[in-house]
């Protein structure tokens, strides 16, 4: 008995040290920290005290898939989840408890209860988009790494705040589009291999734009914390379409509506523009200009980067992910890939262990989201705009600057 106790104490000591290490180690400035495979238990199964302790926030739809992926990993110990819908909480907790054969998983309605838990290393977030920035920033503040579903932001301003929080606390923060690498590899490879010559532009066809929601209220279902679901968004009466997590983007899910999302422009845009920025290698940049075109009522737009490369949106006569280059053989460079095993989820977990930046590092993910939002503002105002990356403002356009952010409903402040 005594031996067992001292063994547990010893394990807790190791565990605590590892956790303190994870909280305090710089992902951006430190040299990669390579944990020996034997320490992580990779030679066989992972020692329980060396698993990454995780929790999930927002488990409907994409969150359900994310939970399944993290839960299925041997190097993850999934200990808590949060959702504002009671039935989702019950389903999720059951899945987790079943996996471990116990009743230990804690289920929360309020994500802040997860944030204050010292034993949790990392979280994944798949709430609607209007919650992402608040949750990512809160995770970073509390020393937690975070995998955040795409699109990562709902407004332009949120992006820089998220990057700053990630860098301030040296957190591993990964965006969530698996398609950037997995779907668009066939577009990316020829570009990076030099087969297209000097890349001039790429075109993305995606939509629709987000719309206003004025649906009539219905009684809030029992067990659904409607006020928490709305969170920082303007108050509105409950309607099932307003908050449905389905992948519909035509007025029957939150993905369609301006208060919660950028519509298809950010939902699918996160994938397509993510692939486009990767293919033409501008992931580290933000556009300096968005040019709005209206040719006989046909509206389309172009983002221009400081290096002259262009991303078109709905350019007439060009297909989705259509790359324009000089077409002579150019120099090739190695194509970045995920770390670890298990796709984008494995990449995140590997980076949590090694403190490297993930493939979909928050900065790259935000730069993609910024493209989507710049297009949205230009289309909303129907004019071309110049973007000051350093100050995150439109140049000489006070009206456009009003759309850089939106006031959040109390008590939510970022």
């Amino acid at each position, binding site marked *: 008995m005594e031996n067992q106790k001292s063994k547990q104490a010893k394990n807790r000591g190791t565990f605590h040290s590892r956790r*303190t290490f994870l*909280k*305090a*180690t*710089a992902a951006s*400035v430190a040299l990669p920290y390579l944990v020996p495979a034997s320490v992580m238990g990779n030679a066989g199964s992972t020692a329980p005290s060396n698993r990454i302790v995780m929790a999930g926030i927002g488990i409907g739809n994409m969150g359900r898939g994310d939970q399944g992926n993290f839960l299925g990993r041997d190097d993850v110990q999934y200990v808590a989840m949060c959702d504002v819908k009671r039935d989702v909480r019950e389903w999720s907790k059951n899945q987790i408890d079943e996996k471990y054969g116990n009743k230990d998983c804690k289920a929360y309605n309020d994500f802040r209860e997860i944030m204050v838990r010292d034993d949790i290393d990392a979280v994944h977030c798949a709430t609607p988009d209007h919650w992402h920035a608040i949750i990512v920033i809160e995770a970073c*503040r*509390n*020393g937690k790494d975070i995998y955040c579903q795409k699109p990562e932001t709902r407004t332009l301003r949120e992006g820089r705040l998220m990057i*700053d929080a990630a860098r*301030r*606390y*040296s957190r591993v923060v990964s965006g969530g589009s698996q398609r950037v690498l997995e779907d668009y590899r066939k577009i990316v490879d020829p570009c990076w291999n030099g087969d297209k010559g000097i890349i001039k532009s790429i075109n993305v066809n995606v939509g629709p734009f987000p*719309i*206003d929601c*004025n*649906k*009539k*209220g219905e009684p809030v279902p029992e067990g659904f914390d409607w006020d928490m679901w709305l969170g920082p968004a*303007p*108050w*509105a*009466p409950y309607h099932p379409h307003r908050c449905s997590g389905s992948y519909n983007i035509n007025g029957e899910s939150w993905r369609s509506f301006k208060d919660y999302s950028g519509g298809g422009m950010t939902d699918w845009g996160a994938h397509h523009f993510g692939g486009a920025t990767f293919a033409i290698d501008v992931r580290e940049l933000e556009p300096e200009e968005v040019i709005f075109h209206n040719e006989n009522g046909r509206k389309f737009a172009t983002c221009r980067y400081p290096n002259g490369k262009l991303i078109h949106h709905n350019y007439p006569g060009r297909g989705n992910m259509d790359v324009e280059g000089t077409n002579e053989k150019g120099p090739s460079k190695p194509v970045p890939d995920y770390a670890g095993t298990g796709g984008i989820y494995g990449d995140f977990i590997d980076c949590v262990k090694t403190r490297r930046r993930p493939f979909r590092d928050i900065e790259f993910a935000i730069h993609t989201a910024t493209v989507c939002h710049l297009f949205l503002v230009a289309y909303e*105002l*129907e*004019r071309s705009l110049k973007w000051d990356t350093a100050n995150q403002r439109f140049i000489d356009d*006070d*009206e456009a*600057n*009003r*759309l850089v*952010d*939106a*006031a*959040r*409903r*109390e*008590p*939510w*402040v*970022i």
Partner: protein
Amino acid sequence: MTKETTKLTLAAVTATVAVAQTDSTAINKAVETLKTYDWGDDPETLKPIDRAIIATHGDTAARMALEKRLVEALNGGISRSALDYVCRRLRIVGTRQSIEALAALLPSEDTSHIARYALERIPDEKAVEAMRNSLPKVSNKLKPGIIGSLGKRRDKKSIQAISNLLSDPDIQVAKAAAESLAMIGTPDAANELSKFAKKASADMKIPVADACLMCAEQFMASGQKSEAVALYNEFKSDDQPAQVKAAAMKGIITAATKK
């Protein structure tokens, strides 16, 4: 008729012409619709107003005329849904002439946020003043929102009032105050945060440390390296949470290596 009145009349005439050019019948109908517009009604019926917003860009008089009609609607006892619509549009076109009507909505729990939705984005000092004046008058439930909007506008005149709320027993108010002072980010704001950090309760330790680190980053960005380092030094001790201590150390190293 005074010179000023003549100017305004001429502006109104010009505005009417400009709005007429953007289909005044449709706009009139849409503005009329606002009087009865409610949840469940088709937002498409209000689209002429959206089109007029785009069409009147750069035409100050036409914009003022359009804004005036929205303000009149706001003052006309419209439904929450219609009010919501109007405030969203005033977020884009609102000027000083909207502020009084919007400010009147700040104390109500039903309308405070949507009023800020417009006020926070109107680039006029009077909008900030309206929010600042409302702070002592609104309920604790609404205070975090007002505090946050004042922070986003970097309102130096609110530093003292917001600093006083750092120790508010309502944790939402106190957290908002820390966040807001970080956004203001001046030496005075940082000083208030720094003073409070020494006596912060357990649940305010991380919010106030984060706010100070944000201030330090702003100092670094504006070349005030010694002020930044002084702030970082306050958070490098072992009694700080591990991530805060690491962030402070990283800040000190960054400052030391930055030319």
